[in-house]
């Protein structure tokens, strides 16, 4: 359940931006979650309302965009789509595919008042 900790980080960033960007209310939060990150989007959605209650983002909408998993096959050197961390190369079957995208989770943007 580290989704709750990550959502607390979201709230911290919202509070920092509220000060620097001069807003008092957040209407929408757009998160980008990597397909290969250890993040469960259902748990994020579940925790979002709980963590944002009684804050500047109470009742804010949550949008989650999934960043697809990409890796570079260490044998055929091609950029390939991978669904999970231990997926072999879909082109040549080689086991060693170095992840290039899809491990991160970030706040993309906000709609604020």
């Amino acid at each position: 359940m580290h989704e709750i900790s990550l959502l607390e980080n979201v709230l911290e960033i919202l509070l920092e931006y509220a000060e620097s960007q001069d807003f008092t209310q957040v209407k929408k939060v757009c998160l980008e979650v990597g397909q290969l990150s250890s993040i469960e989007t259902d748990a994020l959605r579940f925790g979002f309302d709980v963590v944002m209650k009684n804050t500047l983002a109470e009742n804010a909408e949550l949008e989650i965009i999934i960043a697809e998993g990409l890796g570079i096959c260490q044998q055929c050197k091609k950029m390939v789509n991978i669904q999970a961390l231990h997926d072999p190369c879909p082109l040549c079957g080689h086991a060693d595919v170095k992840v290039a995208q899809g491990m991160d989770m970030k706040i993309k943007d906000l709609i604020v008042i």
Partner: protein
Amino acid sequence: MCAICGCGQPDKTTTEQRHMQGHQHVHNHENARLVQVEKDLLAKNNAYAGKNRRYFQQHHIFALNFVSSPGAGKTALLVATINVLKKQFKIAVIEGDQQTEHDAKKIRATGATALQINTGKACHLDAHAVGHAIIDMKLSDNSLLAIENVGNLVCPSAFDLGEAHKVVLLSVTEGDDKPLKYPDMFVAADLMLINKIDLLPYVDFDVSRCIDYARQINPDIRVMQLSVTKADNFQEWTDWLQSNLI
């Protein structure tokens, strides 16, 4: 209701139109605006971890982050390790558990310094809490710092603490397919210790299959097999520590 901001005004635009407009508001919200953030949620933790790592390097402190399921033998491993190495090296331990001082007390009984962090509802240690612990503990230069994370094979994988290596323990009373079931942790770890090998005759755990699974997801992972309680093959582990501490 407006699907963008939940403001109660009717939303007449289609999703496609909204994307064309870059998620801008299309109706009357006074002062409503889009703020670009593009900020990684782990950036703050990673910045604290970087500070911890620089501190460890400056003071020649070899820091290890021990991770496993509950009950794999992390605390027992640390107690046994301290008893072997305490005459040669200064050793300190940070204990992470949701509740209680039990593990820190076990470590202190060996004579080593231990600080307990109770994470409360959190399922992992983070680099900020570890940074405070480092200051409170006044670590010695040229020492070993063992950080025993909360027993959990999922969440601690995402949080860098500034350690030199993550060491994952797996005991033979668990399933030999754990590397595939919890790949994030086995990808993050540099060393896998297979513990309780004295129990192999009584359990259905295939050591070579387990190692194959681990290397399938992390070809570079180093593996040692040992029994902490029977001291089987324990020297390979303490030799490895010594070679990193000198």
